């Protein structure tokens, strides 16, 4: 039972990171129907920037408490990531707004590759140890343990989700976003500037991704140029799982996917008598994706939209 509880906690933590990243995908997809393949790389840039900032601050001000270092690093990382995603949209996606459907997808893949390569050049390809900026003594809950980092991830995700829901549902920017998602041209006629809204969406998505990146870095203790790819892919799966374009769906999908992965990799060995090991855990996300899309192509919470010819 302890193992079960532990896997649930792991799943929730992992799932909330996926959820944060998935929100970025789903918001962008909802507005311009594009898979922002470079989203995972934005996450990676956020994490690597935070690593650099922490690496500069800690020796320069040895007396500074770790949590202040963390906050400063996070702010810098979010700014860099936001600027980066803003630039990506401006350079690679905006000129192709009316191009053939595959064109922006290819530039997106190209961007993802470009950012990985640039990161490899800037930060060298080797994995780097991310400093532990929070206390590491874990708390114990009913036989399972949860580290302060995990606890922070859970709480911060909840706060960010509430903030995002408020932004989308109760502010004028949120209303403009929803209007643009519905129909950019009509929204434009109503005085919304679709380009501004789209840029804002990319910036918000980037901030969430950067925070998720720092969380992943703190959880696993390493940062690397390739760290964004798999979380990005899984988060996209989560977004599709929940119904792409649907914010609540992204959160539900992310958390469910995290749980499935944690429980799956925890129990697959036992269930199959050791034939399949936990190194198959990487493909759970894809199997879930395929099953979901076959049974319910619009995702768990997605509405069925008629084919627009």
């Amino acid at each position: 039972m302890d193992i079960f509880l532990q896997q649930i906690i792991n799943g929730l933590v992992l799932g909330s990171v996926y959820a944060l990243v998935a929100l970025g995908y789903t918001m962008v997809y909802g507005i311009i129907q594009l898979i922002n393949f470079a989203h995972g790389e934005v996450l990676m840039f956020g994490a690597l920037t935070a690593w650099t900032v922490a690496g500069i601050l800690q020796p320069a001000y040895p007396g500074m408490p770790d949590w202040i270092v963390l906050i400063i690093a996070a702010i810098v990382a979010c700014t860099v990531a936001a600027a980066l995603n803003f630039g990506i949209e401006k350079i690679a996606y905006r000129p192709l707004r009316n191009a053939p459907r595959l064109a922006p997808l290819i530039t997106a893949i190209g961007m993802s590759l470009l950012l990985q390569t640039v990161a490899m050049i800037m930060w060298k390809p080797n994995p780097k140890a991310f400093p532990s900026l929070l206390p590491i003594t874990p708390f114990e809950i009913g036989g399972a343990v949860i580290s302060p980092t995990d606890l922070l991830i859970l709480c911060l995700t909840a706060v960010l989700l509430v903030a995002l829901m408020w932004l989308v549902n109760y502010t004028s920017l949120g209303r403009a976003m929803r209007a643009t998602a519905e129909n950019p041209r009509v929204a434009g006629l109503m005085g919304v500037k679709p380009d501004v809204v789209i840029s804002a969406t990319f910036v918000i998505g980037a901030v969430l991704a950067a925070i998720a990146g720092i969380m992943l870095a703190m959880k696993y203790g390493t940062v690397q140029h390739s760290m964004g790819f798999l979380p990005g892919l899984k988060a996209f799966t989560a977004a599709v799982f929940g119904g792409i374009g649907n914010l609540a769906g992204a959160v539900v999908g992310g958390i469910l996917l995290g749980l499935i992965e944690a429980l799956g990799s925890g129990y697959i060995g036992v269930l199959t008598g050791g034939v399949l090991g936990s190194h198959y855990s990487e493909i759970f996300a894809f199997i879930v994706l395929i099953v979901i899309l076959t049974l319910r192509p619009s995702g768990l919470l997605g509405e069925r939209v008629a084919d627009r010819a």
Partner: protein
Amino acid sequence: MNARKIVFYFAIAVALIVLPMFLQVFGNAWVRIADTALLYVLLAIGLNIVVGYAGLLDLGYVAFFAVGAYLYALLASPHLSETFPVFAAMFPNGLHTPIWMVIPIAAGVAGLFGILLGAPTLKLRGDYLAIVTLGFGEIVRVFLNNLDHPVNITNGPKGLSQIDPLSFFGVSLGKPFSFGGYQISSVMMYYYLFLVCVLVSIVISHRLAESRVGRAWMAIREDEIAAKAMGINTRNLKLLAFGVGASFGGVSGALFASFQGFVSPESFTLMESIMIVAMVVLGGLGHLPGVVLGALLLAALPEVLRYVAAPLQHLTGGRLDASILRQLLIALAMIVVMLLRPRGLWPTPEHGKSLQTNT
């Protein structure tokens, strides 16, 4: 066909035949580059059927390449006999399946895989399809990586080695062939083999595009609902597109395995799938000359760069080595070409709705 055209084609044919001899002067490595480029052309032609003709974006195409490669590797290497006593008993001289059997089997098995993987994705459109096929590609790779236990089939990350080179009528392509005092090196023979394969594929692909099936594929690409209304069996035709495209991949995989003599999951990463898609899209979706051009450019240029990268690496203190430079250039090419020419470098002259605008 007028005289000028005949001269033109004749010149191209002569150039293609002479090219490896010319490259040979600079060393075998350059002929190898030409060989690899031709293999990529083959893959791009295959993927073009799925993406270019039928409009189904497949980001896991390398999976079929892997299926073909592993199939040949298993059928023509000592691995199976060494691992399973049954095989050793059945084939006391070791398993050496001839090419005439392997190519149809590879085409068939990969095609079957294509249909199997295509079936659950029939209802999906566009980006969803892309991500699911990407998932399939990764699943295949993870399995190749992990199927070394409990039963050792793929030998895991170590891969399979000692694969037989192809042989025709007792002539092995693995060692140089003497022909009236003139030596033809192994890589050069592979060059001609691949060249023939590419030409055959171009003919097949071209004939397919002009056929009833090809027109049906393009109708599906342009507008699936309208195609359905016109009485096209979209389900079967989409499956057929997946199957045919995959069998091209399977055959190229078998050729690749024999050419390299070694296969491992390393060769079948997502990056390869993306490269092949990039070749097709950069060249010009659905347009054979464009696809061939795209494949040649993306496959050959970075390889050539490898040789000029050494001084650059020196200049940047080792940060910018050949493989990084290659990736950088591919990424930049993908972005810049798409921004300047969203329909590819050499697009189809025909009009096509879905290829033109989004709305």
